[in-house]
C-alpha cells in the first residue's frame, strides 16, 4: 500500500526547542528564530522511523505524522 505521510507541527504548542531538526535535518530546518520549517513533500519511506522518533521526542508534543491527502479546510 502506497501511503504518503507528512509531518505537521502544532504552531501554538511548538516552543522552538529544535530537537526535531537535529533528528531529521532532511525534512526539517529551523528558521532564524529556531522554529521548524517542514518540507511539504511526503516523508521518504527510509526516514519514516526517524520521523516517528521526532514525534515521540518532542518535549511539548507539538509534532504529528499525518496523511498527506487529508485536505485542509479553512475560512471565515
Amino acid at each position, binding site marked *: 500500500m502506497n501511503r504518503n505521510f507528512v509531518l505537521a507541527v*502544532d*504552531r*501554538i*504548542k*511548538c*516552543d*522552538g526547542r529544535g530537537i526535531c531538526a537535529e533528528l531529521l535535518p532532511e525534512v526539517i530546518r529551523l*528558521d*532564524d*528564530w*529556531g*522554529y521548524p*520549517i517542514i518540507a511539504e513533500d511526503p516523508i521518504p519511506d527510509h526516514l519514516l522511523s526517524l520521523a516517528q522518533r521526532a514525534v515521540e521526542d518532542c518535549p511539548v508534543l507539538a509534532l504529528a505524522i499525518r496523511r498527506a491527502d487529508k485536505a485542509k*479546510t*479553512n*475560512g*471565515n
Partner: protein
Amino acid sequence: MNRLLAGPSPAAGAESAASHIGRLGRLPDAGPHFIDTLTQSRIVGRGGAGFAAGTKWRAVATHSRDNAVIVVNGAEGEPQSQKDRLLMSTRPHLILDGAFIAARVLRARGVMLYIGERHTAARDGMMRALAERSEPERALVATQTAPARYVAGAESAAIHLINEGVATPTTMPPFPFERGVDGMPTLVHNVETLAQIALLARHGAPSGTSLITVAGAVAKKGVLEVDSETTVGDVIKLAGGTEGWSRAVLIGGYFGAWADTAAAWDLPLDATGLRNRGLSLGCGVIGVLASNRCPVCEVAGIMHYLANESSAQCGPCFFGLRALADACGRISEKGTSREDIARLNRWAEQVRARGACRHPDGTIMFLQSALVTFAPEFADHRPHVTKLAA
C-alpha cells in the same frame, strides 16, 4: 430593491421591525434545501480566503444534531473598516434574519452575537432590533463582547473567547464545524454575509453587491455599497476623489495588497476577479495613500501595528513579524540598507503560512505587495529631516 442598504437613509439609524417587514415582507420559511440555494448563489465569506458559505453550511449541517451554534461576527477589528458597524447600526434586522435562517436550517440551539467592544452604536442597534423580535427568537440569542484586537475577529478566536474568555486563535483541527462553541458544531459568519443570506432567502438571488469602506486621502471617507463591476477608480470618484495626486492604494485593508493608483484605477472590486489576480477584497477597505505621506514610513507604521497585534502564540508570527517590523522601522528612520532589504525578503518567505491563524499570512501579503509596489522608495529611502521651527 435587492441591496443591503436599500430602504431608509443610513443617517436615520437602526431600521425598525415595522419598516423592515413593510419593505421586505416577513422572513420566508427555509428548510434543508436552502443550502442548495446558498451554494448556487456563490455567496462567499469576507475572510481573505473567500470561502463559500454553502460549503460551510453543509459541513455544519452534517455535524449538527439539533445542537449547532450560530456566531454572528461583528468584531470588526480592522482599524479603518466601518462597514460592519454601519450595517449593525442601520440594518440590524437583516443581520438577525440571516442568523435565524441559519438557526432554522442548521437546527441550531443558539445564536451568539459577537460585537466589538468599541462599537456602541452597533450594539445598541442590534439589541434594539432583538427586543422587537418574537419570544422564541429572542430565547435563542446570547451576546458576547469582542475585545478591540485585530485577531479577535478570527473564527477560532471568537469561539475561544466565548468558550474560555480568551480571544486568541486556536489550532485547527478541530474545525468550528466539528467542535466550536461549547464543543458544538458552529457556524461563524460575518454580519454582512448573514445580511446577504437574508436577501437571498427573500429574492432567490444574491444582491451581487459588497460593502466597502473608502479610507485615507479622499474627500468623503465612508461606506459604499458597490456591485462587482465597480472599479477602484469609481469608488474613489464616489468618495469625492483623491486629495491631490495619489501614489498608491491599499486594497483589502491591512491583510490586503498595495497597488499603484493609476494601475489599479480600472480594476473591478469583484471578489473572484481580485482573487484571480492574487489580490483580495478581504474586509473591503480601499485605503488611498496621501500624496504627502512617505510610503516606506507608512508601511513601517502598519507593520509595527500588525506585529503588536500578534497574539504571541506561534513563534514564527511573534518573532518573525517583530523582526520584519523592526527592519522596516530601521529603513524608515535610518535609511535603506541592503542588509535590511535582504532580511525583509528572506524573513517574509520564512514566516508565511506558519501560524495557527492567518495573521502572519495576511501581514506577509501586505508587506510583499509593499516591497513590489514601493520598490523604488524602499531601494533608496533616506531619513526625513524634521523641521524644528514652523
